[in-house]
């Protein structure tokens, strides 16, 4: 099946946060109790009960105050750090549409995915189980739009065939974020400004330590371990052990 993806056209967003509410409704997530921080942005971070949120980025353009609105969520990376490090097969998985879902029953609470993610997305709930945006894979699997996309009144959020969305996005003339990075993000942005203005990495990648750990140390380690066993066995049958010259036991005892 062709890969599906989100396209998030930031210039259309009015920060109504219908997406946040629709997500909570569909996924039966409770409200987080919060405090007033002097911003409409609320909560300040993704939480175990908040799979997507609008970030209110305050900037100044020609002396005028300006908001940049960014829909934060799991970006369903093509090369996903969370999948790379998850020890429990099936706790995190990729659907045939390319979305990354999770299965709390299989999650072992190791928190590795939190460290494997380049975008600081996965959160753990009170039972120490993973939560994050799963792209409403239950809705998508049944031919529906994700709840946030369905609820978005301005057309900021779109969901569909990834290729088509990219082709459409390129005609808009704005900066397309996430077409190639990490083998292509499953949630891309159309930005008016530079990625760093939205606190997005220019070239997001799997964290270096995580890459070295899983793609270098692990395969070399398996080789190293069996190599050591092989060398020991080879030594025993070629050079042989250092026998004791005067071993009385070998003479049949005293």
């Amino acid at each position, binding site marked *: 099946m062709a890969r599906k993806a989100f396209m998030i056209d930031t210039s259309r967003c009015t920060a109504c946060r219908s997406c946040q509410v629709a997500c909570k409704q569909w996924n039966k997530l409770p409200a987080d109790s919060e405090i007033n921080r002097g911003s409409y942005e609320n909560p300040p971070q993704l939480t175990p009960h908040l799979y997507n949120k609008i970030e209110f980025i305050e900037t100044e353009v020609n002396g005028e105050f300006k908001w940049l609105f960014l829909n934060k969520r799991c970006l369903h990376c093509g090369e996903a750090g969370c999948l790379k490090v998850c020890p429990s097969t099936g706790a995190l998985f990729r659907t045939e549409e390319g979305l990354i879902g999770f299965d709390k029953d299989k999650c072992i609470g*190791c928190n590795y995915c939190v460290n494997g993610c380049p975008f600081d997305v996965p959160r753990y709930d009170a039972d120490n189980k993973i939560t994050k945006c799963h792209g409403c894979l239950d809705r998508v699997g049944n031919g529906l739009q994700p709840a946030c996309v369905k609820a978005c009144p301005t057309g900021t959020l779109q969901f569909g065939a990834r290729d088509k969305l990219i082709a459409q996005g390129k005609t808009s003339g704005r900066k397309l974020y996430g077409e190639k990075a990490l083998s292509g993000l499953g949630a891309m942005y159309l930005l008016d400004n530079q990625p760093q203005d939205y606190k997005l990495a220019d070239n997001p990648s799997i964290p270096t330590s995580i890459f070295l750990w899983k793609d270098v140390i*692990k395969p*070399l*380690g*398996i080789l190293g*371990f069996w190599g050591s066993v092989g060398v020991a066995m080879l*030594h025993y049958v070629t*050079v042989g052990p250092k026998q004791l*010259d005067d071993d009385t036991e070998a003479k049949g005892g005293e």
Partner: protein
Amino acid sequence: MGRYVERFSAFDRVVHWTLAVAFLVLVISGLGLFAHTFFGYFSFFGGPEQGILAHKIAGVVFLIASLLLFFAHAKDSCSFDSDDAKWFAAFGGYLSKNEKEIPQGKFNAGQKLFALFSFVAALVLGVTGFIIWDPTAMARGMTQFSLMLHGLFFILIMMGAVVHIYLATIGNPGTVDGMLWGQVKKVWAKKHASKWFKEVAGED
């Protein structure tokens, strides 16, 4: 005059085998986190969450036992002399049959190196293990780096363990006796640790 000479005290033996059991528990409970192939090993502990708990407990035991064992022998393990240089140059005589033994103290140069390596590895695994105890508690970059180092030193200590077990058992017959019941044969001591044997037995 018996045929045996005392090599390891009861304290050494108990600490060594405590360390060995903790190591085994750590390997079995940790492999499930290392690779999908070994995920089933968690069932030895009743499940992944319990396996991770066992890993943490065994980790603390392993670190304490490693420190005790290292410091109990630090005086012997940390002093290298010219005979050790000769030992390293000859690869301990392990490269061919019937090589002449180089006079060595209580521990040969390779054993001293292994003692130092084990000490460093236990420290690194212990410190990184503490950092990843709760992988969300510390700074992200430090946790990621610790996960990597923990994996690296796991591999290194596994390779060290393979060599250690081989050389201390079938590779050098008579060696494991000292760690099992404390005594080794005098012929063993004369061959493998002649300087030490002279010291403790006053014989040549």
